[in-house]
């Protein structure tokens, strides 16, 4: 197990380093931030002064060395716009995004798995077909459009839920969260649902396909032949087996959920990292963009790492072979 962990950790590190290089080059290519930051009437000398202050006059390789050096110290530079450490600004917004992604993930599993299992057990029933049709919609309609539809129906037409913002928050373990106030929860429902819809469709399909496969296995028939109730056969024998692929895929998708949050946060004016990123891109706030991308990579890599460990707990076969290996 230790060997496996170390090897797995090494892979994660390589991924982070590769991403650092790509991020640096990519951001370097998107234009000169000085043009945006400075008064258009400024003269050559003023431009040069700003360029020098931001360290943009140095050659590319030197900027990269500085970037990596700072990165290793956890310093991703000061935001051009806010004049404060970029990481700090993003971390302030992190709880909002993580809260959103987490609640969306829970929704996707809690709603998606039962629906998928149901559709898998009775694929030809009206219920089964409707669930599949719904999941196709969730899959194919653009995310922002689903978001606007949700706002239109639940906020504008029915007036049940607020259309945007975060609502009242409380401090929990040093993070400001909406989840634990009634007002905040109301604000959270629509964006979380919006972010969840795509993954929910994915979970439904995955759960359905796996349920259909597992339901045909001898061990399910044997479980029935043992005289177990249909309920126990489904909730223990079937569910435990389909949770392995569901957890794996969802774990891998959690990272993209954080990334997808960009759209949802924009539609629902949710003050998370995603919205910050869009604002920063408009202002060419290089350090902020870089910090966002690096943090996102770090989050994704960490999540994948955790999922691998979790996976080995769900599937005894993996657990054992890894212990030996």
């Amino acid at each position, binding site marked *: 197990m230790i060997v496996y962990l170390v090897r797995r950790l090494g892979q994660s590190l390589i991924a982070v380093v590769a991403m650092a290089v790509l991020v640096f080059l990519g951001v370097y290519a998107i234009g000169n931030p000085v043009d945006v930051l400075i008064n258009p009437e400024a003269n050559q000398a003023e431009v040069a002064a700003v360029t020098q202050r931001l360290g943009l006059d140095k050659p590319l390789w030197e900027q990269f060395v500085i970037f990596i050096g700072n990165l290793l110290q956890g310093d991703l530079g000061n935001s051009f716009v806010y004049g404060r450490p970029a990481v700090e600004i993003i971390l302030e917004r992190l709880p909002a995004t993580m809260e959103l992604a987490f609640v969306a993930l829970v929704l996707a599993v809690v709603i998606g798995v039962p629906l998928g299992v149901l559709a898998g057990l009775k694929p030809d029933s009206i219920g089964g077909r409707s669930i599949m049709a719904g999941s196709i919609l969730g899959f194919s309609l653009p995310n922002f459009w689903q978001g606007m539809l949700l706002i239109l129906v639940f906020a504008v037409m029915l007036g049940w839920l607020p259309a945007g913002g975060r609502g009242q928050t409380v401090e929990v373990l040093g993070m400001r969260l909406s989840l634990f106030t009634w007002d905040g929860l109301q604000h959270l429902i629509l964006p979380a649902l919006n972010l969840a819809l795509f993954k929910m469709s994915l979970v439904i399909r995955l759960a359905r396909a796996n349920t259909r496969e597992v339901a045909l296995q001898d061990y399910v028939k*044997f479980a029935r032949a043992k005289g177990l109730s249909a309920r*126990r056969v489904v909730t223990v024998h079937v569910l435990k087996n389909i949770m*392995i692929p569901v957890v794996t895929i969802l774990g891998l998708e959690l990272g993209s959920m954080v990334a997808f949050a960009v759209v949802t946060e924009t539609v629902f004016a949710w003050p998370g990292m995603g919205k910050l990123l869009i604002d920063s891109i408009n202002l060419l706030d290089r350090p902020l963009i870089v910090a966002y991308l690096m943090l996102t990579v770090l989050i994704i890599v960490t999540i994948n790492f955790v999922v691998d460990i979790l996976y080995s707990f769900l599937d*005894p*076969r993996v657990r054992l072979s890894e212990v030996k290996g």
Partner: protein
Amino acid sequence: MSLLQVRDLATHFFTRDGVAKAVDGVSFTLDRGEILGLVGESGSGKSVTGFSLIGLVDPPGRVVSGKIVFDGTDLVAAGEPAWRTLRGKRIAMIFQDPMMTLNPVLRIDTQMVETVLAHADVSRAEALERARQALVRVGISAPDDRLKSYPHQFSGGMRQRVAIAIALLHEPDLIIADEPTTALDVTIQAQILSEVQRLCAETGMALIWITHDLAVVSGLADRLAVMYAGRIIEEGETARVIERPLHPYTKGLIESVPHGKKHREMLAQIKGMTPSLLNLPQGCKFRPRCPRADDACLEEPALAELAPGRRARCVHPHVEALQETLVS
């Protein structure tokens, strides 16, 4: 009264391409403690018969007619509620592939304890103890360690023993074993066979042993029922059926079994192929492959009692065999 009486059982599969009559008019009787070998080629309907008996035929299949009278109750008429109380308790089943019958993500103790608790109102500790005893009974050593293991930590033979132990948990009156040794190698197969024979004698349970391998059941079963295209075409006491088969198909089957030497010499084979269930020949279903077929076979014969305890479904059975016995 016999433990099980099956009368004209028909189980059909309603597929897109038509109705597959996998089991079509199967009748037999089984006494308490009796071992019946159900033999036939692949696709002859042995497994479907087995699943029909335990009420586990899944759509598009359905038991369409007939009676399954178990200990006085017709299960086909009584339906799922009756089966639910019997399944795992009085009728148990063992499957062919031991690699597939145990759930890979659940520990052995979980899979055994849940079986106990499904039919007995006992504490978990008591259930665990029963599970332990069942493992001991099928010859598994260090049962406490085994209980905490997962199926993949077991060999195929060991898994089949566990499956048998699970089937035995409630001391059922009837066990349906669907080719339980086919996937195992020969030595393990022999071990399991003698083990099962011992357990049957010990507990007095009846056994239906499904196989396509005549050699396997001939040493085990009291009686044989030979299936072909969803029907029983011959039935009788094992030794007599093997020595003097009445039905041309049974005769062909026996002649194709290697015996004596381990070397497989050139054996007599039944010519032709198993017919498709969707396109069965008129009259006797064996007609296209039968050396004795003639026009009289265009009308399907019934399963008739040709001698005491000897039944066959054939217009021209090998009755000369019976006469030989009488003469000698």
